[in-house]
C-alpha cells in the first residue's frame, strides 16, 4: 500500500466534502434538529390533554360522589338521581363519556367497579379514573373504620428514595442515574445516526465514481485498497471535523450559559424586591447540569471511530456492488440490520444496563458502538468488558475490511447491473 496515494485520495474526499454547502448546512442544522427533536419529545410526554371527559357518578352510598368531585370537579358529575337507563341513553348519545355505579358492596367488600363508557379517552383516562376511585374508596373505608388521625397519616405517606453512589475508592457521590441514563440513550442514538449518515456518504461516494465512470481512470493510478482506505479515512476525517465543531460548540455554550444567565438575571432583578432576587438566584442551578466525565467522552470517540470503520467498510462494499443509488436499498438490508437490532436493544439497555442481555450484546462487535457507549455512560462497566469489546471490534474490522476489499476490487469495475448476493459471494472466493 502506497500511503502517498492514500493521502491524495483522503485529501480529495475531505476537501471536496468539507467545502460543500451540504456539509455546512448539516453542521448548522443537525444540532438544531436534535434540540427540536428532544423538545418535541418532552412536549409530547408532558402534554396534558385539554379535553374533559364527563363521567356520571351514580352513588347509592351517598359517601362517594362528594370526595370524587373533590378530586376532579370537571370530570365527575353527580348523577345519583338519574336512573340507570337514562345514564345509558346519555352515554349512547354521547352527552357524557361514561358512568359508574357505586354500591355498598364496593365499599364493604372487594367488589370491582364497572365503568360503562363510549370507549374514548384511551388508557390515560382509564388509569386516571382507576386511581381516583381507589383513592376515594380507601378514604371511605378508613373513615368508616374510625381510625385515628395518625393512622390516616400513615396511609397518606409517600416515602421517596434518594440514592447515592459509593465508588470502589470509598467515595460517596450524588447519584445521577437518571441524568446519565438520558445521556447514555442520547449518545447511543448519536452513534446510531452517525454510522448511518457517514456510512451513507461512503456508499454514495463509491457509487458516484462508478456512475461518473471515472473509476477506471482512478484505478489506472491507484490500487483499489488504497482508494478504499483513502475514501473511508477521508469521510472519517470529515466526521471527526463535524463532531469536533459540535462538541466545541456544545461545551462552549454550556460553559458560558451559566454565567450569562446569571448576568441577565442580575440585570433584570436589579430594580426588584430582594425577595424575588433571592428566589431567582436559584435558577442558574437548573442550568448547572452534572458534568460529563472525560473518560466517557474518550470512550465515545473510540467507539464512534471503531463503529464507523467497521460499518463504513461494509457500506463501501455495498456501494461498489450497486449500479445506481436506487439499487442500494436491496443490498443495505443485511448490513443495516445489525445497527437496527443494536438500536432496539439499546431501548432496553438504557433502563437496565447491567442485565445479561445488555452485557452480552454490548460485547458483540456489531452492537458495541451503540450499546457499550450507552452502558459506559450509565453504569460502572468493568474494564475487561470495555477492552474486550474494543479488541473484538478491531478484529471484526480487520475481517470486514478484508471482505470489503475483495468485493470492492471487483465491484468497482462491474458496470451494467447491480450484483446479487450470489455474485458477491463469487467475487469473494475469486
Amino acid at each position, binding site marked *: 500500500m502506497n500511503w502517498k496515494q492514500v493521502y491524495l485520495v483522503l485529501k480529495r474526499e475531505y476537501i471536496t466534502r468539507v467545502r460543500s454547502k451540504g456539509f455546512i448546512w448539516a453542521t448548522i442544522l443537525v444540532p438544531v434538529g436534535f434540540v427540536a427533536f428532544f423538545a418535541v419529545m418532552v412536549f409530547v410526554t408532558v402534554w396534558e390533554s385539554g379535553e374533559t371527559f364527563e363521567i356520571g357518578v351514580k352513588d347509592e352510598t351517598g359517601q362517594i360522589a362528594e370526595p370524587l368531585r373533590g378530586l376532579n370537579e370537571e370530570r365527575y358529575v353527580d348523577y345519583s338521581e338519574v336512573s340507570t337507563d337514562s345514564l345509558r341513553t346519555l352515554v349512547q348519545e354521547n352527552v357524557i363519556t361514561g358512568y359508574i355505579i357505586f354500591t355498598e358492596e364496593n365499599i364493604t367488600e372487594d367488589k370491582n367497579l364497572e365503568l360503562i363508557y363510549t370507549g374514548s379517552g384511551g388508557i390515560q383516562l382509564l388509569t386516571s379514573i382507576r386511581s381516583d376511585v381507589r383513592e376515594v374508596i380507601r378514604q371511605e373505608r378508613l373513615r368508616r373504620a374510625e381510625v385515628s388521625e395518625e393512622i390516616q397519616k400513615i396511609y397518606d405517606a409517600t416515602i421517596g428514595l434518594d440514592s447515592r453512589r459509593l465508588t470502589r475508592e470509598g467515595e460517596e457521590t450524588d447519584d445521577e442515574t437518571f441524568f446519565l441514563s438520558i445521556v447514555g440513550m442520547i449518545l447511543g442514538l448519536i452513534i446510531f445516526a452517525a454510522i448511518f449518515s457517514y456510512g451513507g456518504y461512503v456508499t454514495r461516494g463509491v457509487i458516484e465514481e462508478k456512475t461518473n465512470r471515472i473509476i*477506471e481512470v482512478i484505478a489506472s*493510478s491507484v490500487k483499489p485498497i488504497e482508494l478504499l482506505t483513502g475514501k473511508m479515512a477521508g469521510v472519517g476525517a470529515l466526521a471527526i471535523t463535524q463532531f469536533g465543531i459540535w462538541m466545541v460548540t456544545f461545551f462552549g455554550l454550556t460553559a458560558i450559559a451559566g454565567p450569562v444567565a446569571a448576568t441577565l438575571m442580575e440585570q433584570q432583578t436589579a430594580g426588584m424586591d430582594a425577595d424575588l432576587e433571592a428566589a431567582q438566584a436559584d435558577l442558574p442551578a437548573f442550568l448547572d447540569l452534572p458534568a460529563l466525565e472525560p473518560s466517557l467522552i474518550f470512550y465515545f470517540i473510540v467507539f464512534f471511530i471503531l463503529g464507523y470503520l467497521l460499518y463504513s467498510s461494509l457500506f463501501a462494499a455495498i456501494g461498489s456492488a450497486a449500479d445506481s443509488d436506487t439499487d442500494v436499498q436491496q443490498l443495505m438490508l443485511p448490513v443495516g440490520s445489525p445497527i437496527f437490532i443494536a438500536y432496539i436493544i439499546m431501548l432496553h439497555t438504557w433502563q437496565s444496563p447491567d442485565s445479561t442481555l445488555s452485557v452480552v450484546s454490548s460485547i458483540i462487535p456489531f452492537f458495541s458502538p451503540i450499546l457499550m457507549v450507552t452502558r459506559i455512560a450509565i453504569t460502572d462497566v468493568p474494564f475487561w468488558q470495555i477492552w474486550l469489546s474494543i479488541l473484538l471490534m478491531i478484529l471484526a474490522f480487520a475481517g470486514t475490511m478484508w471482505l470489503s476489499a475483495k468485493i470492492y476490487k471487483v465491484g468497482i*469495475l462491474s458496470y451494467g447491473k447491480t450484483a446479487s448476493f450470489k455474485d458477491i459471494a463469487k467475487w469473494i472466493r475469486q
Partner: protein
Amino acid sequence: MKTITVSHVSKTFGKTKAVRDVSFDVEKGRIFGLLGPNGAGKTTTIRMINYIIPQDEGEIIINGEKVSPKTQKMIGYMPEERGLYKKMKVGEQLMYLAQLKGLKASDAREKIKYWLNRFNAYDWHSKTVGELSKGMSQKIQFIATIVHDPGIYIFDEPFSGLDPINSELLKEIIIELKGSGKTILFSTHRMEQVEQMCDDICLFNNGKVVLTGNLRQIKKDFGKNTVLIEFQGDGSFLDSLEEVRINNRSTNFAEIRILNGLDSQEILRRAMEHSEIHKFQLVEPSLNEIFISTVGEDNIKNQELLK
C-alpha cells in the same frame, strides 16, 4: 525496442475465458491497433496492461519491468467507460489526477496550464465539470490522460462517443504524440480507423490473437487480390460470380475478394457485358476482409458490429 511485451497471458472470469494465451509486442514510437469485435477480450487485455486487474497466467513487461504501480505511472490511459467528477472544478480535478500519477503539484500546475491553453480551455479552469458541455468535458478527459507526459498512451475505443470535432482533435493528438516519439496503443472495433492510423496491429477474436504484425506487411502478404469496381447499370452479374466474397456492396460499387485463383479479368469481362464500368482497380484487401478471411466467417462473434 519493445515498449510493451505481452506474453502468453490468460484471464478467466468465472467460467468465461476472456483472454486466452495472448502474446504481442508493441514497439517504441509506433501506433499499435488492437482490433476485433466487441467482447473479443480487448478491454480485459488493456486493463491487465494497465495493472487494473491481474492476469491469471503469463507475463506483461513494460519498459523492461513487470506491470506494477510503477509501470502505471508510465502510461496515460483513457478507458472506454470514461468520466470525471461532476462536482469538482476542472483545475482541481486535473491536479488530483496528475498527482495520482506521481506528478509534483508545481509541475502539474504548469502542465495543466499548458494543455488548457493549448485547447483554448483555460477559462474553464474554475468551472465544475457538470457545467461543461459534453464536447468540452471530452477535451478535459484528453488532458487528464496526457497531462503527466508519459511515454505510453493507451486509448480504449477512443472514438466511440466523441463528436466529430473532438474525433479529429484526438487524431491530431495521437499523430503529434507519435511524432514526439511516444508509443500509442489503441483498441477499436472500427477497422477503417486502424487503416488510417496504425503501424502495427493485433487482431482479436474470442479472446485469442488471430493475427499480429506490421499492417503494411500483413496487407502485402495477402496479395493484390481484391477488386474495387464502380459501374453504372445492372449489378446482378455480381450474384453469378463464384469463388469470391463481396464486401461493401452498393448500387454502383462493390469490393470483391477473389478467393481461388479466379482471374480478375474474368470479372471485368462479365461486368462489361452487363454494365458500364467507371473504375476497375486491383488492390490489397481491406482490413475487414483480412479479418474475415483469417477468422472464417462463421467464427466471428458479434458479426453485426464488424464494419
